[in-house]
């Protein structure tokens, strides 16, 4: 039985919307266990989102259209990105029109507008957060592109679907260039998704925030959309990592049984990724802000090493 590629595309986006809160719930549950605490359950993020959606929006008097428009833009780009990254199947109509550089661009647009929105209402924290976020972005984006170029060199394409297909079928899974690119990717993921040791997603201390400082003034459905998009971003990075480096089981034909198998494998992969993430987050304190340059610099270095080793060894 075969569903059309459009159906696959639809399934993927539904999966992203539905499972992103579950994944963050899983990470939080694991974190509680790691610190021997009681948990609120893996479904707490859904309840949080539902609560935010029922609340009224409190808008600053001098908020411009940028501030009101940003949550929808951020949410929209996250969904679009979900149409590009092969999570279940590589047979994606959108995947043909947009490659990995577009993906990085989508994240950049959403970040750009969030930073603008942070400065829009003119609070001290918003501007502070925007400036920090831009500092991180200026270091993380080149490293991210570098890591992805390394992978695309190995697989001779910048189309994510193509990369995943080639990587899946190629026998030499342990290429040194990919190992370096993977290390770089892990560091970038921590920075891009605002996890410890780069940012602390659960802090209430405004002065230490990076991402949260920009969105402090958001409330109600606006905040819900931004939070949801944040969850999707984490989910997407995990899915992207799995598509680039561990693409086993991703369906190629749009076959329903293949998609189901891909879904099952993705669950396992994400479950393991959550464990790794929590181990990193529990074992490390947050870095001093200016250590970030070293951290992201080493991500860039890893990616560059990956590229060099591709030309030298492969």
């Amino acid at each position, binding site marked *: 039985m075969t569903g059309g590629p459009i159906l696959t595309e639809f399934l993927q986006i539904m999966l992203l919307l539905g499972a992103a809160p579950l994944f963050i719930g899983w990470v939080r549950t694991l974190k509680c266990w790691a610190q021997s605490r009681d948990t609120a359950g893996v479904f707490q993020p859904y309840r949080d989102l539902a609560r935010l959606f029922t609340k009224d929006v409190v808008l600053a008097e001098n908020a411009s259209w940028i501030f009101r428009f940003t949550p929808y833009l951020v949410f929209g780009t996250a969904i679009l990105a979900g149409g590009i990254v092969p999570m279940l199947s590589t047979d994606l109509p959108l995947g043909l029109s947009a490659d990995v550089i577009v993906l990085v661009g989508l994240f950049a647009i959403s970040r750009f507008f969030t930073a603008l929105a942070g400065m829009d209402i003119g609070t001290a924290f918003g501007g502070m957060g925007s400036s920090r976020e831009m500092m991180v972005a200026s270091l993380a984006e080149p490293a991210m592109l570098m890591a992805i170029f390394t992978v695309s060199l190995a697989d001779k394409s910048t189309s994510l679907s193509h990369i995943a297909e080639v990587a899946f079928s190629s026998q030499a899974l342990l290429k040194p260039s990919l190992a370096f690119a993977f290390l770089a990717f892990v560091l970038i993921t921590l920075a891009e998704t605002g996890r410890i040791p780069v940012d602390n997603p659960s802090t209430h201390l405004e002065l230490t925030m990076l991402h949260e400082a920009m969105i402090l003034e958001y409330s109600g459905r606006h905040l819900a959309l931004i939070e949801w998009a944040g969850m999707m971003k984490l989910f997407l990075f995990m899915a992207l990592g799995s598509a680039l480096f561990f693409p086993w089981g991703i369906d190629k034909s749009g076959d329903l049984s293949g998609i189901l198998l891909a879904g099952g494998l993705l669950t396992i992969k994400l479950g393991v990724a959550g464990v790794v993430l929590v181990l990193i987050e529990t074992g490390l304190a947050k870095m001093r802000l200016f*250590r970030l340059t070293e951290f992201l610099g080493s991500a860039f270095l890893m990616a560059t090493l990956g590229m060099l080793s591709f030309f030298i060894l492969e």
Partner: protein
Amino acid sequence: MTMLGDALIAALGTDARFEPGQCPSSVICCTVSREKFAEAARAMKKSYALLAAEWAVDESAFGRGFSVYACYRWGREYLIVRSGLPADDPQFPSITKRYLPAYRFERQMHSLMGVVPAGHPDLRPWIKFEDWPRDVYPLRKSFDPSKPMQRIKGEYQWSRAEGEGVYEIPVGPVHAGIIEPGHFRFQAVGEMVINLEERLGYVHKGIEKRFEALSWKDGARLAGRVSGDTTVAHGIAYCIALESMTGCSVPLRAHWIRALLLERERIANHLGDIGAICNDAAFAFMLYQLSRLRELLLRTNHRLFGHRLTMDRVIPGGVSVDIDVSGRAEIQAELAEISRDFEKLVTVYDESSSLEDRVRDTGVLKPEKARELCVVGIVARASGMNLDCRIFNPFPPYDEYDRLELDVPVKVTGDVHARAWVRVEEVRESIRIIRYILENMPEGPISTECGLPSPEATGFSAVEGWRGEIIYWLQAGPKGEINRCMVRDPSSVNWLGLEQAIPGNIVPDFPLCNKSFNQSYSGHDL
């Protein structure tokens, strides 16, 4: 004669008169004319004394005007210098140029009592709000606290920094966490803080004024509420000052139980603080584990003494709770568990390099600066000052040297790590002291009748709470009532230490530094 007394005589000669009536007899009170008030400060500075407190008293009940007092400390000596001021011209020479902590003491005296420190560089109101009428002074006897305060339009003048790339970050007074209110204004270039200005007073409750309307016995209850997390130490400090005035001799066992409660309070707060410091570096594991240990201790408190923080268990003349054999066994078992888990957690703290990277060299309060600011307690001991009332001004039962000996940790780096580590070692020491107390506590009654002080007597006490030295100075009026109760929480001086430790740090490190100081807003604002 004492060393400080001699120095004062040497500098001022016959201008200095020793006052009788100051209790306990180990503390000397000396009257100088108001012109010589600053000269006395100079003499004290030359003898390396530190300023412990400065305050003003409305002595109209005695048929006089105002008095200003300055209390100096050197080693184990305390010396109080007093100057009388006429009611129609309450001016005195400021000692801020000699002693930095007087900067805030004098602003506070000026705002609340209306005495004028001549030559003070900055007389903006402190604690008093800008929308209170200028000529209303709540601590004066003529002020009626039962009427609501009138409101006027006023604005607080902040210090400013200007230049390219300088921007301001106002934080508070309402914060995101469950903490007290206080305003912090940063001037920063990029992420580098070039100036921090604190603005406190948001939890001003008029406690010092309230004391004057209470009986001596109820005063002990109010003292226990000056700063909730230090309720035992404040209670003890008030009671010791009162007992020194009435000549009450507290039973030995009561002293030992007070020490037991005091050390338990110290452990509970230090456990919470060490965890909170780690949590501000996003190392949440330590916070949850240490909070668990703290909770254990508080629950034992509740079972044995009927209150988690043991509030109101210290009363004038003794204590209101006793401990029996089964209670002793319970505390010993609890301490064994706390001590075992605590050591494991300290190892985690000590061996986590990413945490180490955050806490070392952050928020440094240099020893020379700490000395200049006359900071006390944990903050002082982390910056190389060997100060502890339990050793240098021993109140019972710590004064019995051969019986309750203690070892106080002193670090010299003055950073967040030093302040955390001083706490770690104090927890160990307090656990040891509690075990010793439980083994060797004398038998006997736990309280005695305290009695009332004679009119015009004054009492003084200094007690080492978990934050540091707490000072109480009590004065009985002509009818034997409370005429003035001066409270000097360690926060009154240590907040200035935080303000001075921050410039040069980056903005996102402030919460970590602040947590390592963890001063009380309530104890400061009174």
